[in-house]
């Protein structure tokens, strides 16, 4: 068991080391800015990865670009703007709320509403159905009583 977990950890460390680039930062804020930016920018080649995650060459180039701009003292906003000027809003994993991205932002809310309405309608129908069901139960009881009555009468005759 112990050996297994050591092997497992070694494999994990291998994954963690893959694609590590050595970057030196002037201060922790800058490093934090680098980490946030690279995890918020999309790699355009492998579209479902951030440039921090991707090993594509373009992602490496964009990481370099982010790093260099931070070294030049550019702010996070400046860098995000630089990227959108070149690649469009698509490069941002957190796109701004605009007319064009409205559906993207409002979509989940719309679907949630549709879901709630559906649940509400379904629940109401179920309720009316169960009322009906209990009615039939009463009818059955009446019928049963009638049958019992008939049977008892039959016994007497």
């Amino acid at each position, binding site marked *: 068991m112990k050996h297994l977990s050591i092997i497992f950890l070694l494999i994990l460390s291998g994954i963690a080391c893959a694609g590590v680039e050595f970057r030196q930062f002037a201060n922790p804020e800058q490093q934090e800015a680098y980490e946030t930016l690279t995890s918020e920018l999309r790699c*355009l*080649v492998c579209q479902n990865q951030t440039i921090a995650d991707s090993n594509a*060459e373009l992602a490496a180039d964009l990481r370099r*670009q982010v790093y260099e701009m931070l070294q030049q003292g550019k702010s996070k906003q400046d860098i995000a703007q630089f990227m959108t*000027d*070149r*690649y*469009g809003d*698509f490069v941002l994993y957190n796109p701004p709320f605009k007319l064009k991205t409205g559906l993207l932002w409002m979509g989940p809310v719309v679907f949630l509403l549709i879901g709630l309405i559906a649940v509400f309608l379904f629940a109401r129908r179920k309720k009316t159905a169960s009322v009906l069901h209990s009615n039939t139960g009463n009818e059955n009881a009446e019928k049963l009583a009638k049958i019992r009555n008939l049977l008892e009468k039959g016994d007497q005759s």
Partner: protein
Amino acid sequence: MLKYILPLILFIVLAVFLALGLNLHPSEIPSPLINKPAPEFSASKLQAPEEKLTPADLKGKVWLFNVWASWCVSCRSEHPVLNQLAQAKAAVIVGLNYKDEPEAALGWLAQLGNPYDVSIMDQDGRIGIDWGVYGVPETFVIDKQGVVRYKHTGPVTPEDVQQVFLPLIAKLQAEN
């Protein structure tokens, strides 16, 4: 009645969304550069590294900016199309040799023919970033004022040339 209509409506909505989804090209990202001035560069020419080319040198001309590389597979299928387009002499064709080795690039042109009036080198991909390049080949059309008017992502096909590029170039040539 509603019991039958509701699933039908749901089915139609779903079918419409799926059909639209099938016809989308999510890998083609619209360029924010359209109708903006061509991004600046000053790059060494592939055939003459001591000479530089800038977009200002091309002012007054309609030019195509084709991003290519000798390592790029779809560039190979695009190449004969560009050779043909070059023969039509409709516009100046500038090549951006993207993240490539000059020797490999020169070898490629010697072997397959050179459709470019001039090719410039972008070995570290910085010009590519300024132009929003994310997949090679890409082709931009720039007008006489130096404004980007069109971007094509992926290999240019003969149909694209006939239906898009030549009409657009003719239109831009007629502008001042």
